[in-house]
């Protein structure tokens, strides 16, 4: 048992390192860092312009801070989901290693989680810079006291668990359904972008969409992060919930997400070996 756990842990770290190697596979580490910073910053500038055009308000409006934070944090969802979709595609088509990974005793889920973790860490750098730029360039006033740090950290970790679970499951499903893999992850990420209120509050959406938003962990995750960074609730239909209640909802929606994703992963794996789709290539 201990042995199994240690193998799992080492495998997780090893696949994380592989992910990092792929991630940072730039001729020049300096260029890599710049890219990690410049890309999200560029996105932030576009957001500022869009906000001004759509709402007619300046970047100093309180709503802008909420939009900015949600958008910055949601980068993690997009990047990890997209990144894991690419992992399947590349491991199968470019590196031709998918089958060897698959038959290793470590378990496919552990491997994908490790790769997802690497992507999470790489993206976190960009998120941190974007958040800092919000303060330094766009004058957003964060209000994260020492007392908020445990709450912020707990929310962040739960969110990452949900993101990784979803990323792993979608990658596994993409492995047996579509050829390119990242299409599905990308699609789901965009739908969640809308339904969890990454930019505009979900209250403006049709009722049924709001209901979906209310069972997504990312809705509570973003709300929790916004509350700890800005100290004002964002989504109106959640404003009656206390900070603790938000965290509680984040916990159980994350737990449910993990269970569903685990089931999806198992089903996808089973389908892969029964249909023979595991290492099908695009040219087939």
């Amino acid at each position: 048992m201990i042995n199994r756990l240690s193998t799992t842990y080492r495998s997780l770290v090893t696949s994380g390192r592989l992910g990092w190697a792929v991630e940072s596979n730039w001729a020049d580490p300096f260029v890599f860092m710049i890219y990690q910073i410049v890309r999200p910053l560029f996105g932030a500038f576009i957001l500022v312009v869009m906000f001004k055009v759509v709402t007619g308000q300046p970047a100093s409006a309180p709503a802008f801070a909420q939009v900015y934070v949600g958008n910055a944090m949601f980068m993690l969802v997009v990047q990890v989901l997209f990144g894991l979709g690419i992992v399947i595609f590349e491991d199968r088509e470019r590196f031709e290693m998918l089958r060897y990974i698959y038959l290793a005793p470590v378990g496919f889920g552990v491997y994908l989680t490790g790769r997802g973790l690497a992507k999470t860490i790489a993206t976190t750098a960009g998120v941190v810079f974007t958040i800092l730029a919000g303060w330094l360039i766009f004058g957003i006033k964060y209000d994260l006291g020492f007392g908020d740090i445990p709450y912020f950290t707990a929310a962040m970790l739960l969110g990452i668990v949900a993101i990784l679970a979803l990323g792993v499951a979608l990658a596994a499903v993409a492995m047996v359904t579509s050829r390119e893999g990242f299409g599905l992850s990308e699609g789901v990420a965009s739908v969640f972008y809308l339904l969890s209120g990454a930019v505009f509050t979900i209250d403006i959406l049709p009722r049924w969409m709001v209901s979906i938003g209310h069972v997504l962990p990312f809705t509570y995750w973003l709300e929790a992060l916004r509350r700890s960074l800005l100290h004002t609730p964002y989504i109106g239909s959640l404003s009656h919930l206390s900070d603790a209640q938000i965290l509680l909802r984040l916990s159980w929606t994350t737990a449910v997400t993990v269970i569903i994703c685990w089931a999806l992963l198992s089903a996808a794996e089973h389908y892969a070996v029964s249909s023979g789709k595991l290492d099908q290539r695009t040219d087939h």
Partner: protein
Amino acid sequence: MQWSIETRNLRRTFRDRPVRRLFRRAVGTPVPDKVALDSVNVTVRPGELFGLLGPNGAGKTTIIKILSTLLLPSAGEALVDGIDVAKDPDSVRRRVNMVSGGEHSGYGILTVRETIWMFSQFYGVPTKVAKKRADAMIERLNLTESADTKTSKLSTGMRQKMNIIRGFVTDPKILFLDEPTLGLDVGIAREVRAFVSEWISEHPERTVLLTTHYMAEADSMCDRVAIIDQGRVLACDTPANLKRDLAPDCVYQIEVPLWTETISPLDQMPVVRSVAMEHRGDQGRTHLRVILEEEGGIASVTDRLAKRGARVLSMTRLEPSLEDAFLNLVGHGLSSGNGENGAR
């Protein structure tokens, strides 16, 4: 005795893509499932180097995929080290590893050493043991100079050597090698074969299942060979016994000027059991490998050739080979050559 590998009426079929299947059914031309394996029964003892020999599409890779848990059987059972691959794939995975040839696998960004180390981690090999084993194998396969080279910069041969080490470094109880020397040049193919043979003689309790369509490879390496074609096992024995029992006594190689006809005029003769033809375009000649029912038949064969205007340039009586056994059994030769990458 506990078999190392055992299949019982193993069957695997493949379906067409759902959309196409629906379409074909709708227009009234339903396609039957493609049968890749049709009731395969094979048993391999612990410590054996067992060969699966068969032409393209015979089902070799399908067997390996099922035994290594990459594919589920459609019917029948497959046991690896006594464990059912369909029921407990996790336990099987901890005992096996697999290497296939003729591909370009490898994380281009990792070096040879990093790749090998990574997989040893996935199998829970202790770091020190893994390093020591990897170094020894790298040296054995003359890969030391390339050990810190990125995989993307490796030649095909080097890459396959790395791939081989990736399979062996986890010290599997049972190892599957799917055409491990496919596409390698003579020298490297020989190194790889020597490596496998040495490993198994140093680890007498380990089992290797190897597929190949190189006759001489099967002949020289394997303790026992199963000849398979179109998803069926046609024979299974030691190479020596296969040659003795299946290879006929009367095998002739006849050289004629380039023969543009089909082989049917010869094939239809009662004294001829089978004929294989190989054109040597560059020399303007054709080699006919003729298996006779009886010794005396050779005269009528040369007669027939003469009547067809084919002058016999040379004629040699051959020692029966595994290929003759195969030809005799399967009724046709292997589509690609045999032993041409230096197995002899």
